[in-house]
């Protein structure tokens, strides 16, 4: 248990809310709250994953055909980009935890944001825009004429819905990171108060985990070996 006497003498009590007895209680509550929110996100994405699993079972050849329309190099690159961003996020939190300067914290945060923006940039420019030109965007630009007409369209629906929802979460994450940069610049984070950083980190890592599953499920389980790769 935290030493209560130390807590009351701790500098920077800003951010300490009136309904709590100790900073530790507040920190605990914040963390539990974020984990509960992530649980809701698991079920939120989970609805789409459930649907995907069911349709994959029922329409496997069509889904494999559809999966081969995606380019693995972009998916893999994006996976790597997100993993890097998780590392930089973790380092940013750690910097605050051990009391590094606010410049250090901000450095890692900005790096995370750049990587996140790169992810979205690659998605938009090299994947979705290309898909639009190729005519494999259901509902908006659909001129696909290969095998399994309806099944491939179903697959592409899933592709865009799932990666779209994921990208939306990334954008929200970028917004949160911006707020964190501003807070860090104002010197709000110290070794005894970095809760917003930590819980935002949890959110960011969660978004990374969703992509860790989306990448193989959408890009890789497509029997690529039969076509010798793409």
């Amino acid at each position, binding site marked *: 248990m935290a030493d209560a006497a130390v807590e009351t003498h701790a500098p920077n009590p800003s951010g300490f809310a009136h*309904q709590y007895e100790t900073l530790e209680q507040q920190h605990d509550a914040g963390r539990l709250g974020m984990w509960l929110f992530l*649980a809701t996100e698991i*079920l939120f*994405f989970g609805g789409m994953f459930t649907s995907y699993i069911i349709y994959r079972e029922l329409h496997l050849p069509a889904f494999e055909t559809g999966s081969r329309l995606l380019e693995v190099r972009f998916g893999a690159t994006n996976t790597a980009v997100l993993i890097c961003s998780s590392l930089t996020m973790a380092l940013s939190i750690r910097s605050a935890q051990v009391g590094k300067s606010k410049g250090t914290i901000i450095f890692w945060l900005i790096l995370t944001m750049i990587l996140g923006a790169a992810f979205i940039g690659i998605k938009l420019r090299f994947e979705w825009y290309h898909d639009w030109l190729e005519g494999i965007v259901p509902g908006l630009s659909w001129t696909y004429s290969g095998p399994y007409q*309806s099944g491939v369209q179903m697959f592409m629906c899933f592709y865009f819905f799932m990666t779209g929802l994921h990208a939306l979460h990334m954008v929200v994450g970028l917004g949160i990171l911006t707020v964190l940069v501003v807070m860090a610049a104002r010197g709000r984070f110290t070794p005894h108060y970095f809760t917003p950083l930590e819980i935002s980190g949890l959110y960011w890592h969660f978004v990374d985990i969703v992509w860790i599953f989306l990448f193989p499920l959408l890009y890789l389980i497509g029997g690529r070996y039969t076509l010798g790769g793409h």
Partner: protein
Amino acid sequence: MSTATANLQEIPAESRVNYLNASYGIRSWLLTLDHKRIGLLYLGTITLMFVIGGVAAVLMRLNLMEPQGALMEPETYNKMFSTHGIVMVFFFLVPSIPATLGNFCIPLMIGARDVAFPKLNLMSWYIFVTGCLLMTYALISGGVDTGWTFYPPYSSIYAHTNVVAAALAIFIAGFSSILTGLNFVVTIHKMRAPGMTWFRLPLFIWAMYATSIIFILGTPVIAVTLLLLGLERILHVGIFDPSIGGDPLLFQHLFWFYSHPAVYIMILPGMGVISELIPAFSRKKIFGYSFVAFSSLAIAIISFIVWGHHMFVTGQSIYAGLVFSSLSFLVAIPSAVKVFNWTATLYKGSISYQAPMLYALGFIGLFTMGGLTGLFLASLATDVHLNGTYFIVAHFHYIMVGGAVMAYLGGIHYWWPKMTGRLYPDLWARFAALVIFVGFNLTFFPQFVLGYLGMPRRYAVYPQEFQALNVMSSAGASVLAVGYVIPLVYLIWSLKYGPEAGPNPWKATGLEWKTPSPPPTENFEEVPIVTYDAYEYPTVRAGVARG
């Protein structure tokens, strides 16, 4: 209980600072972080939504006075029952007890100053109001006619009504409930007063905790489902579209994965209220505390594995139907445990019949009836006959109105003195409770018979031979409507003219009764230390003054 003698040593409420008069002006209410004020904000909003849903019900029952439809075309009737269902389920029942009584009472009952995340609490109210406004817009700009269940392909392809707006409104309101549930779980885990161990918590808290689990795990699924439905409607292609291999039943699976636990969101808090009212008005410790506590959790958990019983006749595989049917029988058990425990609490209690108790007793009877009729529906064979008929309508109204709404009213009456510092006239309150009870049974009991005889639900017209029962039901509905208006009148009257309540007008146990009525903004002068169990009523019953 209308003549409470004010404690002469107490400072009169008007001159004592409490959460109501601590600050004035609309900004102090719209920007409040006080859970008690937020509870009242919700109370107002939810009452408005209840009126909207109630008006739709009145119009429906008026139409059903005649076999060929007395009032409206079938297309309009479709919009009426959809409005009634959507508004009552998503915008009244789901938030009702949690957002009003839960927000108000939980911190008081656990000895905390506020919830864990007050700003999130206020934000959840604003999100809820946004959902309500969007829903109202959807209704006045054409309405929805898909039923509150939104089944595709009608809702995704063929409906010409405001499906997207309504779905978005529910999506938004869903986030409000997620935040509320999240707030409650963290509050109950992290902010209990010293000495308030889990097994000293009032059972209302256990019920709210179980409800919050459902909020957190279930609501996101309806959110993503409605999102997918909306996308399909906008893009004219989507994952429920049969022409590309989509399965409309998938929507039903996802929809009911939330909506079945949702009905337990609607009843669990009510059961929590009853667990408070019965001991208080029997002046007796609850029988089997831990059984009641664990049954709340059991209901929350089992509620997630029974959803297929809504799909027995829509094309679900028989084998899945077998699984869901067996599991559905299981969920009745913890509910029955509660009913037995409440009844055992009443036995040899010192019972008094104030309005909250009348609501509680009504709950026990009506909920039991509703629950028992659920067994007919859980059983595959009988459900084939009863599904899609008025039997189902009667079943769920017995639980949701005879159960949840009665519990809600009972709770409002019980905690009204705490919330406002005033007492309402108990004679009028008892009268209203009886009117509601009579009106309710007159409305819905004939519907069991109608359903058994085969009258389908969601139909604007019906065969001639059903008219007598329909007229009876509509007559009951008008009595019920009057019954709902009466409390509105005397509760508002009591705000100005009701006698002062004092801290504990019911002489009940619980931390919320140990602080003044209305409480100060920070709830307690000093953090209470708890050294006793809940419901520690004195065992000597004879001659205890009910004051």
